[in-house]
């Protein structure tokens, strides 16, 4: 029997954090707890990216999910839940269709996991010290320039849409 290395310990720790906090996200009765548990889920996933030496992806995960999406979620929940007296309930409804769809989805994911011919490489310490940012940058402005630009246009449209919705004037204009 071979000993667990530091790498394995970190992997199992992160797996525990991700799975445990996801359970809290799904099963918590209090929506604030769900939102804060997401913090640990996102962090655990970022940790996995670090273990896979995908440094750029890990930091982007932090920036987008923790800095952007989670803060927005918390803002939304806090402004509606506490400041204005609206109760957000997280209760279970439509159990049967939900469990059927969940079971189908889980089966599909497991199927993909077993069918896919995973591309594995041996752990290479040299690889750990190289950044992936340069390769990603080159790929973005050469091979994948069209999807990259389309994504930025989509983001711009979404941003303009948000501004237009937020600034819609109600009632007749007063001069």
């Amino acid at each position, binding site marked *: 029997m071979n000993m667990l290395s*530091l790498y394995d*310990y970190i992997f199992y720790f992160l797996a525990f954090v991700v799975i445990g906090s996801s359970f809290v996200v799904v099963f918590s009765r209090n929506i*604030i707890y769900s939102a*804060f548990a997401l*913090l640990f889920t996102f962090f655990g996933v970022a940790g996995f990216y670090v273990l896979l030496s995908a*440094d*750029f992806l890990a*930091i*982007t995960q*932090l*920036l987008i999910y*923790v*800095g*952007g999406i*989670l*803060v927005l979620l*918390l*803002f939304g929940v*806090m*402004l509606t839940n*506490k*400041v204005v007296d609206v109760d957000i309930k997280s209760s279970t409804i439509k159990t049967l269709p939900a469990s059927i769809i969940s079971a189908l989805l889980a089966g599909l994911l497991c199927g993909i996991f077993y069918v896919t011919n995973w591309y594995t490489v041996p752990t290479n310490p040299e690889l750990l010290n*190289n*950044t992936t*940012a340069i390769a990603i940058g080159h790929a973005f402005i050469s091979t994948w320039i069209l999807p990259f630009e389309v994504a930025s246009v989509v983001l711009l449209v979404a941003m303009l849409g948000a501004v237009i919705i937020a600034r819609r004037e109600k009632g007749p204009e007063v001069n």
Partner: protein
Amino acid sequence: MIDWILTQFPDSILGYIIICAVPLLFILPYALVTIYLEMKMSAHMQDRVAYMRTGWHGTLQPFADILKLLQKEDIIPTAADKFLFILAPYIVFIGTYATFAVLPFTSSYIGSDLDLGLFYLVAVSSLVVVGILMSGWASNNKWSLFGALRSAAQIVSYEIPTALVLLSIVMIAGTMNMQQLSQLQSGGISDWYIFGGPFPIVKKLLLLPLMFILFLVQLTASMAEVNRTPFDIPEAESELVQGYNTEYSGMKFAIFYLAEYANLFAVSAITVVAFFGGWGSPFGSFMSGGVWDLFWFVLKGMFFVSINIWLRWTLPRLRVDQLMYVSWKVLTPFALVCMILIGYILVAF
């Protein structure tokens, strides 16, 4: 230095834990000095003398403050959400402490020599926001919640000009590695990016005004990110008691306090690395290397900490709408225009 620690502790987990604790050796004495500095500077600016009785000119006062905080009763309000209330100060401190991982204190010491150092700094600062929101919500106090929401809105808004400034620096330097950024500017004071960087004279003169504008944007935005006057509306005493940490006392309050001061040094250090040559000596190779690197880095960092303290006790507080105006309609456009012009200059020369 990191390799040396790892060789001392062959049991690698212990070695890594010790490496993680190294920045504390700096943060704790630094916080004591800065608390004293802030009290004395503010007092002298207001024609007072501040502490005079605890030790020579009150030098022992920070220790007295810490002793008092240590033995103070830890109060958790009954209506507070206990778990999140206890967790929040640690999240805030972790977010601040994480930035110290990539600060290049000397040419031979950096916690993690990440190639994406600057990008990492921008990303981990968002963790503080989550901690602040958590503390505000868990306190179950409307002042705390308003303070937390204001603070989060402020930090999120001011991250954008900061990110644009750092992006401009990355464009000029061609690296996001904090150690390499310092290395590029190590040829003395004229090589610092605030003075145009280590380039031929024409390019340098073209970059110079842009760098100066970017520096002012960075200085303003970094002040806003640490929630200090004139950007302290999250803890505006006249409106919100003390903002998100109103309900905290004892050691939990001390951790918030420590995180605030540590954050103050972290943002100053980012300004130093981006514009003022990091650990580089202003005289080129004279007085550089070894302990001198640490000396220059801390000296430059403390210089910007003092500027923050000076401005805090000089300027009045902004209103919420003025705060958003400054970020979105002044700093962001200026930083954006500078970034585009720098792009043209880099392509042309």
